[in-house]
C-alpha cells in the first residue's frame, strides 16, 4: 500500500490549477470562466493545507485556506451579480458576444 505523501497532494493541486486555467482560456461562457477561477483558488487551498500538514509547519496554512474559502464566496457573490446584470442587458452570457468596448 502506497503512502500518500505531499507529492500526491501537489500533483492534484497542479492538475486542478491547470484545469482552471484551461477552463478560463477555452470557455466563452462567463459562468464557466468563473468556475475556472474557483478551481484555481481551490488548487491553492490544497497546497496551503498540504504544506501545513506535511511539512510540520504551523497552522498558518489552514487559517489562510479558511480565509480564501470565505473570499471565494464573496467574489462569487459579486461576480454572479454582475453576470446577472450582464444577462439582463444583453440576453447572453457569452463573452464574445458582449463586446461594445473595442480597440
Amino acid at each position, binding site marked *: 500500500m502506497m503512502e500518500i505523501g505531499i507529492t500526491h497532494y501537489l500533483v492534484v493541486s497542479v492538475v486542478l490549477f491547470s484545469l*482552471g486555467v484551461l477552463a478560463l482560456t477555452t470557455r466563452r461562457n462567463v459562468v464557466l470562466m468563473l468556475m475556472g477561477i474557483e478551481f484555481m483558488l481551490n488548487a491553492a487551498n490544497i497546497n496551503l493545507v498540504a504544506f501545513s500538514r506535511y511539512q510540520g509547519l504551523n497552522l498558518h496554512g489552514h487559517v489562510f485556506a479558511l480565509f480564501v474559502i470565505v473570499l471565494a464566496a464573496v467574489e462569487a457573490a459579486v461576480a454572479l451579480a454582475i453576470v446577472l446584470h450582464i444577462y439582463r442587458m444583453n440576453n447572453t452570457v457569452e463573452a464574445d458576444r458582449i463586446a461594445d468596448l473595442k480597440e
Partner: protein
Amino acid sequence: MIENIFNSIPSFWPEIAMALTFVIAMIVEFTTGRKGSASTGMATGLFVLAGFVITMVLLPFQGSDPRLLFGSMYTIDPFAQFFKYLILATGIVIIVFSMQSEELRRQETVGEFYCFIAATTFGLLLMTGASNLLMIYLAIELVSISSYILAGFSKKLHRSGEAAMKYVIFGGAASAIMLFGMSLLFGLSGSLSIYEIQAGLASGAFAHDGDAIWAWLIAVIMVLAGFGYKISAVPFHFWTPDVYEGAPITVTAFLAVASKAAGFAIMIRFFYVMFFDSLVDVGKWVSLPHVEWNMLLALLSVLTMTLGNLVAVWQDNLKRMLAYSSIAHAGYILMGAVVMTDLGIAAMLLYFLIYFFMNLGAFYVVMVVADRTGSEHIDDYRGLGKRAPLLAVGLSIFLVSLTGLPPFAGFIGKWMLFSAVIEAEYIWLAIIGVINSAISLYYYARVFRNMYLREPVNGDSSPITLSPLVIVTTILFIVPNILFGLYFGPLVAFAQHSVKIFMP
C-alpha cells in the same frame, strides 16, 4: 499574543476610522436610502467625505516610526505613511468630483457609490502596510471586489456592465494566480511573514539547490502577476483599457491613481524586503543566486511603457487614451523599481505626487466635457479652445505635464526618475524612456490640435458655460502643475523623507 493585539490597536485608528465610515454609511444607506432621491445620496457622500477627513486627521497620530503591528501582519513606516496620505487625498478629490458628475447623479443608488469608495480606500490603506502574505491577499481582494462593483456602477450603460464583467474575470484570474504563487512561497519558506521569508532566504539555505531556485522563481513570478494586474503592467494589463473606458469616469481616475499607487506600494515592499540587500552592493539584488530581479522588472518596465504609448496613438476615445497613457506611466514608474535604491524609490514617490495632480486634472476636464457635450470622442474636442477656454488651457497643461515637458511639474518627476536610472547605470533604460516620452507627445498633441486648430464638427461653437465650482476646481489643479514645476523643493524633500521601508 492577545496583548500584542491590544497594544497594536491605538496605532490602527486611521484604518479603523475608514472601516467604520464604510460600515456606518452602508447601514444608513440600507435603512434610509432606496428612495431614489439625489439628496440622500449627497448626504451619504458628505458623510463619507467627513470620514475621509477624520482618517486624514488621525493619520499624523499614527506616527511613522517604523514598527510592526499585530504580530508581523502590518507595518508602519514613513513609506506606508506617504502612500496613505496620497490615497486619502485621492479619495477626497474623487468624492468631490463624483458629487459634480452628471453620470453618477442620474443613478438611483448613488449613496452606495460613496460607501464602496470608502471600502476600496480601506483596502488600499491596508495594502500600503501589509507585510504578511495573508494580509497582502486580503487587502488586494478587498480592493478588487469593491472596485468590481464601482466599475459596473452606471447600471443603465451597456459598457459599464461589460467593464465590470471583464474586470471580474481578469481580476479573479490574477488574484488566483497570485494566491497559487503565495501557497508555493509558503511551502518553500514555511512562513507567511515576508520578514521571516527574507530571513530564510538571507541564511542561504536555498543558494545551492537548483530546483529550489526554479521553484522560487516560479512562485515569485506568479505573485508578480497579482501585483502587475493591480498596477496594470504589461502583460497583465488587458483589463485596463476596457475597464477604464466603461467605468464611470471618477472610478477610472480613482483606479488610475489610488489603486495604482497602492499596487506599487505593496510591490515595492515585497521586493525590497525579500530580495533587496543594500549592504552588499548598491543597485544589486541578492538573496537568490542566478536570478536577476532587476532585469525582470526592467523588461516589464520597457514592455509596459512601449505598449502603452504605441497603442495610445490609435485611440479616439479620450478616456481610453488616458487609460493607455496610464499604462505607459506605470512603465515609467517601474524604472524606479528597477533601481530600488533610496534615490530610485524617492523618484517613484515624487512621480506619484506629481501624477496625482496631472492625471486627476486631466480626468476632471474629460469628465466635465463629457457631462456638457455627452461625448469623450476626440472629435468632440474640436474648437474647445474657443468654446471653453479654461478647460482647454487646463487640459493642455495637464497633458504637457504628463508628457514631461518643462516648465510643468511632470518634467520634474521624469527628470528625477531618469537621473536615478542613469545613476544606477541603466543608460539603455533611460534612452527607451525618453523615446517613449517623445511618442507620448504625438498623441497628446492630437488633442491640442483638435482643441485649438480645428472647427467643431457640427458647427456647434456655442460657448460652454461653467459653474463657479468647475472653474475653481480646474484652477486648483492647474496651479500645482505650474507651481511644482518651478518650486519643487518641498515635494522632493517629502519624497526623500518617505523612502524608509521597515526592515527588522
